[in-house]
């Protein structure tokens, strides 16, 4: 368990809760209750029933035969794209809304980048009949219009955030400010393994259902106890944390996390935090962040709104620091090419985020009998604009 959070809320040197006093009572309430709630039988029953009957879990582990042939190895896809609302985000929002209800909260807030977490939050709020306010950077509101409309149809109020770069970082800051202003009735469903302790641990535990399923599915599909490789994309890191969770202490499994390089890690237009960042404090935790020499947070760039974040969860920062996870990155173009490869070989249109993980298949030399699991964290409907543009540019 050396990669799990310690009793002070840290993963090695990363984590903690660097929050203003105004947030302290809410964070303490969550910290003192989350394990109790997660371990409660009533919670577990309700959570697993909803995952099964509402989200559609378990998500399949699909042997991608033509992709396997192309790379001359055995590739299995963990199909989080088949979940209700189209991504792994629903695992977390179902869990957290059950926690919010047990804490007696009636108003839910969340941040969103691409809109996937926003949609997943608005969805569970509709299901539970709770008020829902989603903070979304104004730029993202414009570039992810279909998801904005989905949230509105689900009954959520979408607040365009006009501070900073008007993207995910600013939406997160604004959600935190809302929580400071509405501490009594409101619960903040954070969308990734970021933020002050206990959020990174809470979200990782809720997303751990991904690796829990991979464990028995891999045995069922291949007769082997574990895969040789697990690949996942990383922005904040929730699908990676969930995909890796039950394998963290199993060194037989090579874990590979793929960041968004944007136009390239040397270009200045990137969201690859591990590649270009340094330790610092952002959104309540000490982790790897993108910052300038004065400690100001710099603006990230990626074609993928879901990876367009200048930080990374403290667990992931620690997994990099302790060399348990190998970090690599893929550029916009590499991700686009990988998305088309999967689409044309397997008939699966992935979201731009997991397309980054798929891009790494080109860079690693696998053996023919290696078992490689790639988490397809979401589907590509929301990214059709970018895909159509690429298709036209490349005359595909």
């Amino acid at each position, binding site marked *: 368990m050396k990669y799990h959070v310690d009793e002070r809320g840290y993963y090695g040197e990363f984590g903690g809760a*660097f929050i*203003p*006093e105004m947030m302290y009572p809410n964070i303490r309430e969550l910290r003192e209750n989350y394990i109790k709630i997660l371990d409660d039988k009533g919670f577990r029953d309700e959570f697993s029933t909803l995952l099964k009957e509402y989200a559609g879990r378990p998500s399949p582990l699909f042997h991608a035969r033509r992709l396997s042939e192309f790379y001359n190895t055995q590739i299995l896809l963990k199909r989080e794209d088949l979940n209700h609302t189209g991504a792994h985000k629903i695992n977390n929002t179902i869990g957290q809304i059950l926690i919010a209800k047990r804490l007696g909260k009636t108003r839910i807030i969340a941040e969103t980048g691409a809109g996937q977490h926003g949609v997943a939050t608005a969805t569970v709020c509709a299901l539970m009949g709770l008020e829902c306010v989603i903070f979304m950077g104004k730029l993202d509101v414009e570039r992810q219009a279909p998801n904005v409309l989905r949230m509105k149809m689900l009954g959520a109020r979408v607040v365009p955030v006009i501070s900073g770069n008007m993207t995910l970082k600013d939406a997160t*800051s604004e959600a*935190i400010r809302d929580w400071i*202003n509405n501490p009594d009735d409101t619960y903040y469903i954070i969308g990734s393994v970021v933020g002050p302790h206990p959020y990174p641990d809470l979200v990782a535990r809720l997303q751990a259902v991904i690796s829990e399923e991979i464990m028995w599915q891999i045995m069922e599909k291949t007769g082997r106890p574990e895969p040789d490789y697990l690949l996942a994309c990383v922005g904040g890191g929730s699908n990676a944390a969930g995909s890796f969770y039950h394998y963290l202490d199993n060194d037989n499994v090579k874990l590979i996390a793929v960041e968004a390089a944007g136009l390239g890690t040397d270009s200045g237009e990137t969201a690859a935090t591990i590649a270009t960042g340094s330790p*610092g404090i952002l959104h*309540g935790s000490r982790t790897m962040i993108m910052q300038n020499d004065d*400690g100001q947070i710099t603006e990230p760039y990626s074609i993928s709104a879901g990876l367009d974040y200048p930080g990374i969860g403290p667990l992931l920062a620690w997994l990099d620091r302790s060399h348990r996870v190998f970090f690599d990155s893929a550029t916009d173009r590499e991700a686009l090419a990988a998305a088309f490869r999967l689409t044309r070989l397997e008939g699966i249109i992935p979201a731009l985020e997991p397309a980054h993980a798929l891009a790494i298949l080109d860079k690693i030399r696998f053996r023919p009998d290696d078992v490689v699991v790639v988490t397809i964290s979401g589907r590509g409907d929301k990214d059709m604009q970018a895909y159509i543009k690429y298709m036209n540019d490349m005359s595909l």
Partner: protein
Amino acid sequence: MNRIDKLFRNKKNNILSIYFTAGYPELTSAEGIIKDLCAAGVDMIEIGMPFSDPLADGPVLQQSNCAALKNGMNIHLLFTQLENIRKEVSIPLILMGYLNPVLKYGMEKFCLKCAATGIDGVIIPDLPPEVWTEQFRPVFEKYNLYNIFLISPRTDDDRIRKLDSLCRGFLYIVSSSSTTGKSEGFDQAKVEYLKRLQGMDLKNPGLTGFGISDADSFSQACRYSQGAIIGSAFVKRLGEKTAESLPVRDFVNSIISA
């Protein structure tokens, strides 16, 4: 003796502290604003070190932080601008900002520079008292620099006592659960909260901040605490293009001579 202690020893009530963001509205505004505030008769000044993501701040201070960074402000430059400030200004000066830029600058170097410049205290809202105690307390004490803690209406009594025991100078009483710049009047809940604190017999004096914007809210805050801090309302005034020749003096007068 730290100038904050001296202030509270000599003045028991109606203490006015004013916040502004260094580097706003112009990169070189800070020195002039400090001198004007001093001449106008404020008791203490909080100098904001801008940050790209000020989590506890509302729209006005977000905007001033953002503009100050665009102007090119940073901690190093701020210390340079304040190099000779103690030749003319004798009231307590406090630096207020977020943790990341301070850590990047280096906490020891920061404290040393504060001492050399004549800074008396620091407010870092996202530096939890637990972390300060564990990692930074010795270096603060080495340079006789006070770390001012915030308490909010939802901070329970045990924690208030703990913060009071760690704090030196004064407690920063956040008047309501809110970010900065939300003036919603001085309602009964605020009065009850300040009365509760008065009844706790704390070792530190308290200044009320957040939502104090005019003569009325200032005098209300002064009834139940030693004084108050005004930030957003002042910064907003600084940002307005007006014909006033002495906006700082006029603003301070509107608060204290009412």
